């Protein structure tokens, strides 16, 4: 088991190295970094000085090694537009994004699983048919459109919810949270729904399909032949088997929720990493873009690792193969 985790962790480091190469390459492909940092009237001597101080005259592999070692310590250089260390900016913005992504995921998982179970067990009910139709819309409507519609309805027409920003936040050290104030919670509602809707419909459809599959299996038939109660069969036997594949998808979805947050954050002017990234793209702020790439990849890789471990916890058969392979 430990060997399995170690091996997966090593693979993750490999993935991060590859992402590091890409993010490092961004600096080189987007032109001379010195040009981005200086004014037009900077003299050639001063440019050379900056170049030397940034280590840009060293051989490329050495530069990459330095870049990667710095990145591993969360030193991502200085933002061109804000003249602040990128790690500071990210640290400031990260709580907003993580809170939004977590809320959206909890929403998506909770409702997705519940509605999925309902529509699998009550296959022919009217509500199931409505849910199936609505979920199709949820899957096919683009996020920004849903966001704008929500803003129009609840902010413009009804005036119930704020149309942008995070509301008041409370600080805990470097972490800022909007979960403890009324305005913070109100501000969280629409972005979470916007961000989570797609995942919710996806999980709902997945749970429904999986559960219908599981209900057809021999062990469910045998459970019925043993006279177990319907409740025990549906929520004990069928649900647990249904959730095995759902864990993978939900884990990976959390990663893409963070990545997709770019659009939602832009629509709602949510002060998170996504918004920071969009501004960075507009201003060719390479250090922020490169760091964002690394951070998001790191989150993805970490989630993947956790999902792999969770898998073996849920499914005893995998535990056996993992044990044997190790």
């Amino acid at each position, binding site marked *: 088991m430990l060997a399995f985790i170690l091996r997966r962790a090593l693979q993750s480091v490999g993935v991060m190295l590859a992402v590091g190469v890409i993010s490092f390459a961004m600096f080189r492909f987007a032109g001379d970094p010195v040009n981005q940092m200086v004014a037009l009237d900077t003299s050639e001597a001063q440019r050379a000085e900056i170049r030397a101080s940034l280590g840009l005259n060293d051989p490329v592999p050495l530069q990459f090694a330095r870049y990667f070692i710095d990145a591993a310590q969360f030193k991502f250089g200085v933002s061109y537009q804000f003249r602040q260390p990128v790690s500071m900016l990210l640290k400031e913005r990260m709580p907003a994004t993580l809170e939004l992504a977590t809320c959206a995921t909890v929403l998506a998982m909770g409702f997705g699983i519940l509605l999925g179970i309902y529509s699998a067990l009550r296959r022919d009910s009217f509500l199931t048919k409505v849910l199936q139709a609505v979920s199709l819309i949820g899957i096919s409507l683009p996020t920004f459109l849903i966001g704008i519609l929500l803003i129009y309805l609840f902010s413009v027409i009804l005036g119930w919810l704020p149309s942008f920003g995070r509301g008041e936040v409370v600080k805990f050290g470097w972490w800022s949270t909007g979960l403890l104030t009324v305005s913070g919670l109100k501000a969280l509602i629409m972005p979470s729904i916007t961000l989570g809707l797609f995942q919710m419909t996806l999980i709902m459809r997945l749970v429904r399909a999986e559960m219908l599959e599981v209900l057809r*299996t*021999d*062990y469910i*038939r*045998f*459970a*019925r*032949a*043993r*006279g*177990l*109660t*319907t409740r*025990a069969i549906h929520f*004990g*036997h069928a649900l*647990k*088997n249904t959730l*095995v594949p759902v864990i993978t998808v939900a884990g990976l979805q959390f990663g893409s929720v963070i990545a997709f947050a770019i659009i939602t954050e832009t629509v709602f002017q949510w002060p998170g990493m996504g918004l920071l990234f969009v501004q960075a793209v507009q201003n060719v702020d390479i250090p922020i873009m490169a760091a964002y790439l690394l951070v998001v990849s790191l989150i993805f890789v970490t989630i993947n690792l956790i999902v792999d471990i969770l898998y073996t916890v*849920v*499914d*005893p*058969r995998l535990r*056996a193969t993992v044990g044997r392979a190790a």
Partner: protein
Amino acid sequence: MVEPVLSVRNLRVEFANRRGVLVAIDGVSFDIAKGEVLGVVGESGAGKSVTGLAAIGLIDAPGRIAGGEIYLSGLRIDNLSPDAMRRIRGKRIGMIFQDPLTSLNPLYRIGDQLVETIRTHLNLNETAARKRAIDLLAEVGIPAPEKRIDAYPHEFSGGMRQRVVIALAICAEPELIIADEPTTALDVSVQAQIIALIKRLGRDHGTAVMLVTHDMGVIAETSDRVAVMYSGRIAEIGPVRDVVQNPLHPYARGLMGAIPTLAGDASKRLVQIPGSMPRLSAIPTGCAFNPRCDFAFERCRIERPEPIRVGAQAVACHLYDRAATESAA
């Protein structure tokens, strides 16, 4: 007369589909006495498994029991409410399915599945149920049951898993066990052990057993009586010795003739029944076997034969209706 454990009277099972209604079982009647093993043989689609599923109330939509009655020790069970029937399943009727590899939930320890079933039907606490589970595993021949009880299904071989399935089926001391092809998915060497186990359990507890299989060898080994099914009806039913050695129905004769024997003449070809069983949507009128039967005459194509008593056997064939044979001749 002692009341039979299972009594099926004129059972009819239908499956509705878009094109109409298919009749899977039509007019099937039989009894199983306490401690008796009834073998049910026939080709795939003859209605063997559906009969078993009907008896335990597991015919799923679009199928339904459209007629007839099923009695369990005198209690009519085919029209019970779903919950009342659920209480009978697993408690008074145990069922064993064909494939032990897929019958157990892979995510639960076998002990948990046993304890869950025991506690559903018997008023026992966790500790007592666990103790009973260990005893049951020992009874079905699982070595070191107190250790193995905490293992997952994938940690057992196929034969051992079928033993666990049997333990699950008998955990509330049912009056009747329905075994649907219990050995088909197993190695030949394991088959014999499982058959011996089912037979021993039936004898020790006085349980009636309905053994569904397409393997005549298994029937000859285990059963007291045998029912040969064809196209949703019983073609012939009787004591196993009589039916095997002196089959009456032309189909049963064909079946027995198709069994190779070690003692027999190797140069003699096995008997083959021409053609194949009709699909449910195209069952011929009269006797369903008439297109394949060498002895078919006019009446076989028009009138459906009802069971006729011949000695200890009952056969659904016009050949044995003396009046009819005479008039045909």
